[in-house]
C-alpha cells in the first residue's frame, strides 16, 4: 500500500515532472483507451531500456541521444507493425499517438538518466516502477474524465471482440454527466484539478511523517 502511494505521489513521471503528456492526455477519454496506451508505453519502455542498458558500454557518449532515439524508434516501429496486423482494435484506438511514443520524454528520459548507467537487472526494476506509475497516472486521469464526462466506466468495449465479453458500467445516473470533460479543454482542467488534489495529499503525507 505504501509503495503504491509512493508510486503515485513521489515517483510519478506524469504527476511530478509533466513528462509524456501528449499521449496521456490524448488517450484518456476512456479508461479502456488509457489502459491500452499505458500498456503499450510500458512494453516499449521496458524493451528499449533493456536494450540500451545491454549496449551501454558500446555506445560512445557524444552520439548517445541519436542512437537512443534510433533504438526507441525501431522498437516503436516493430510494435506499430505488430499491433497493426495482430491487434487492429488497438491500432484503431491509439492511431497517430502510437508512432508518437518515439518522442515520449519518459522513455528517453529514463534511458538517459537510468538505463545508460545501470545494469540490466536494475533497469528492468526501474522500468517496472516507471511504467506502472505511468499506467496508474493515465488511468486516474481517464477515470476522472470518463466518469464525469460520459457517466460510464468502460473497461472492455472495443476490445470485446478479443476477449468475448463487454465491460461497460453506468456509474452516474443518465443526464448527470458533463460532456465538457470529454473535450480536450476538459482534459486540461481535469489534469489541473487532479494535480492540485495530489499536491494536497502529498503535503498531508509529508506532515504526517
Amino acid at each position, binding site marked *: 500500500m505504501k509503495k503504491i502511494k509512493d508510486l503515485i505521489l513521489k515517483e510519478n513521471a506524469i504527476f511530478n515532472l509533466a513528462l509524456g503528456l*501528449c499521449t496521456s492526455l490524448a488517450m484518456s477519454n476512456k479508461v479502456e483507451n488509457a489502459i491500452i496506451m499505458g500498456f503499450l508505453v510500458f512494453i516499449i519502455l521496458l524493451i528499449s531500456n533493456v536494450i540500451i542498458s545491454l549496449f551501454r558500454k558500446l555506445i560512445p557518449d557524444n552520439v548517445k541521444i541519436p542512437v537512443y532515439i534510433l533504438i526507441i524508434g525501431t522498437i516503436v516501429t516493430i510494435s506499430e507493425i505488430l499491433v497493426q496486423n495482430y491487434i487492429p482494435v488497438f491500432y484503431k484506438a491509439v492511431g497517430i499517438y502510437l508512432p508518437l511514443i518515439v518522442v515520449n520524454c519518459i522513455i528517453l528520459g529514463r534511458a538517459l538518466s537510468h538505463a545508460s548507467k545501470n545494469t540490466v537487472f536494475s533497469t528492468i526494476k526501474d522500468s517496472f516502477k516507471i511504467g506502472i506509475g505511468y499506467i496508474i497516472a493515465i488511468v486516474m486521469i481517464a477515470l476522472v474524465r470518463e466518469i464525469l464526462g460520459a457517466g460510464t466506466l468502460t473497461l472492455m468495449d472495443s476490445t470485446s471482440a478479443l476477449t468475448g465479453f463487454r465491460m461497460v458500467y453506468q456509474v452516474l445516473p443518465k443526464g448527470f454527466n458533463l460532456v465538457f470533460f470529454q473535450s480536450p479543454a476538459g482534459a*486540461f482542467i481535469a489534469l489541473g484539478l487532479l494535480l492540485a488534489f495530489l499536491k494536497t495529499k502529498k503535503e498531508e503525507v509529508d506532515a504526517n511523517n
Partner: protein
Amino acid sequence: MQIINILIQQVFAENIVFHKFLGLCPFVGVSKNKTSSMLMGITITIVTIMASIISYLIYQFALVPSNTEYLSTLSFILVIASLVQVLQILLKSYFKKIYDMFGIYLPLITTNCAVLGVVLMTARGAYPFLEMLIYSTFAPLGFTFAIIIFAIVKERIELSKDIPDNFKGMPISFITAGILALIFAGYVI
C-alpha cells in the same frame, strides 16, 4: 479561400496544442516569458516546415516506390534529428547572433511531439504537395500563437496572490490551458 479555411482550422479550431495535445512539454516548460516562448515557436515553425518538405519527398520518392511505408516513423525521426543537428552546426559557425538566440531551443526540438506529429500527419501522403506545405506552416504557427498567449497569461498568474497554495505552479497552469482550450474550441461551434 481554401487557404483561409486551413488557416482558421489549423490555428484556432484544431490547434495542435489545444485540440491534439501535441507539443505539451515545451508548452508547459518553456512558456516562462513572452520572448522565450516566441523564439521557441519560431524555431518549431522553421524546423517543422523544413522537416515536412524533406519527409514528404522521402516518403513519396523513396518509401512508396520501394514498398517500405512502415519505415516512415523511423525515417521521419531521423530527418528531424539530423536537421536539428545540421541547423545547429550551421548557425553556430555562420550566424553566431541567431545561434545565441535560438541555440538552447534547438536540441529540445528533436524530442518534440509537435514536430513529429505534424510531419506524420502531413507527409504520409494524404495531401498534395502545396496543401501539405500550407498545412505544415499553419499548424506550428498555431502552436506559436498558443504558447505566446499562454506565456502572457502565465506572467500575470505568477504575480497574483489570490491563488490557493495547492493550485500554485503546475495545477493552475493546466487549468489556464484548459480555459484557453475552451476559447479556441469555441471556433468549432
